């Protein structure tokens, strides 16, 4: 499992350079609550027909930062972007709340969950 740190400003560029959709399979987005009102956002990929070759791009962010969408490059990312919005109460470009929670819900069940 290879982890590559990126900033929110360059995450789209980094993924664009890396992601060949016939070589790499996008698994999901993941969120991880950290201390000091921060969280880690992970974009997880695996290589097709390779032995457990996993690459994770990650960014450490404040909850109020806006996460850029990668849906134009990875259409299937929309569902995990929406889940991230619901569960962590963050903003992801073009992704609305309401996948699991009510659209006007004030809850963010996993925000700060682990600290």
């Amino acid at each position, binding site marked *: 499992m290879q982890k590559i740190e990126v900033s929110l400003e360059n995450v789209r560029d980094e993924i664009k350079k890396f992601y060949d959709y016939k070589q790499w399979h996008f698994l999901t987005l993941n*969120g*991880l609550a950290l201390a000091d009102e921060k969280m880690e956002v992970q974009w997880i990929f*695996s290589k097709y027909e390779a*032995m457990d070759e996993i690459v994770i791009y990650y960014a450490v962010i404040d909850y109020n930062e806006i996460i850029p969408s990668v849906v134009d490059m990875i259409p299937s990312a929309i569902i995990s972007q929406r889940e991230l919005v619901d*569960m962590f109460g963050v903003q992801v470009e073009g992704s609305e709340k309401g996948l699991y929670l009510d659209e006007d819900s004030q809850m963010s069940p996993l925000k700060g969950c682990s600290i």
Partner: protein
Amino acid sequence: MKKTINIPLGSQHISLLEPVRFKFECENEKIIGVDADVGFVHRGVEKACTTSFKFDAIGYVVARVCGLCAITHSLTYTAAVEKLLGAQITSKAKYLRILLLELDRIHSHMLCLSHTCENAGFEAMFMRIMGDREHIMEIQELITGNRVQFDYISIGGVNRDLAPESVQKIKENLYIVKQKVQGYMDEFTNNWSLSLKFKGIGMLSLDDAYMYNAIGPLARASGLRIDVRNEIDYLPYHEVGYKMQTHTDGDINARNLVRLAELVNSIEMCENILNGLPEGDIFTKIKGKPQGEALMRFEAPRGELMYYIKGNGSAMLERVRIKTPTFSCIPAFSHIFLGGDYADAPAVLASFDPCMSCTAK
């Protein structure tokens, strides 16, 4: 200006036993827009795993995410914990784990195929397959003690050894089901209701399968060679006769044929395991508490299941992330519906074999 109408499918629908709603925007009979609502029964399992349960109990908690692939859930989580603890599992436990994983796949695929028959109006075939599926449920009960929630996998191995007197009965049941599957092959290939009717319906091209990151039988029916069993060496799948099953047509018929071929391969793997099961212990005592992060994947009946866990050296984990197969296929599902007839939607949906229990974990 074209006039469109919105037609919902679900959340309660005669052809769909799962709490999911697709809202179709239709122009006459053609679907031109799709909106999926999957959040009817969200249970907060991820949060419960980090707030209410210690790491050694979570394997049993996550087995409750899904009644069909309970073994795959508990194994994927357990394997992630074992990775963090540096645990070495005995060969016998590994083979028994594959045996149960493949039994999960067999009865789940049989359930899907039976629903496909039901959607085709072939009620008799639906009942035949569900009746035959009982042989597999019986095997699971013989091995684990339960028909549904097995609690068979534990950190360090498995909880019950295979009783010598059960082996013959398991082989007999597998043989019966194998013969039945040959009969299904004939029906799904030659019966108009199950073959021609489903050809060219619910198409997913290979390029779109890549683009939408399709997984499981849905992807393999479009020719995309993705199967976690081929991408991990944690379990000795290549020693027990695993062969990837693919098709190129990408329609409902191709998905049925891939599942049928996987049924045959899974039964063969189970037979090989029973014929060559190593001697030894089924359980190794593991000490310690998980620290660090681990990501583990296994091939569930519907495709890739992923668990990400992070531990801090205490009994409570910091994060348990569950990525289920149906969840990641929702965008692909929506894409497949576009341009199709509304009348085909229930059959197309059944061919996805969606599991909302997993999705709304």
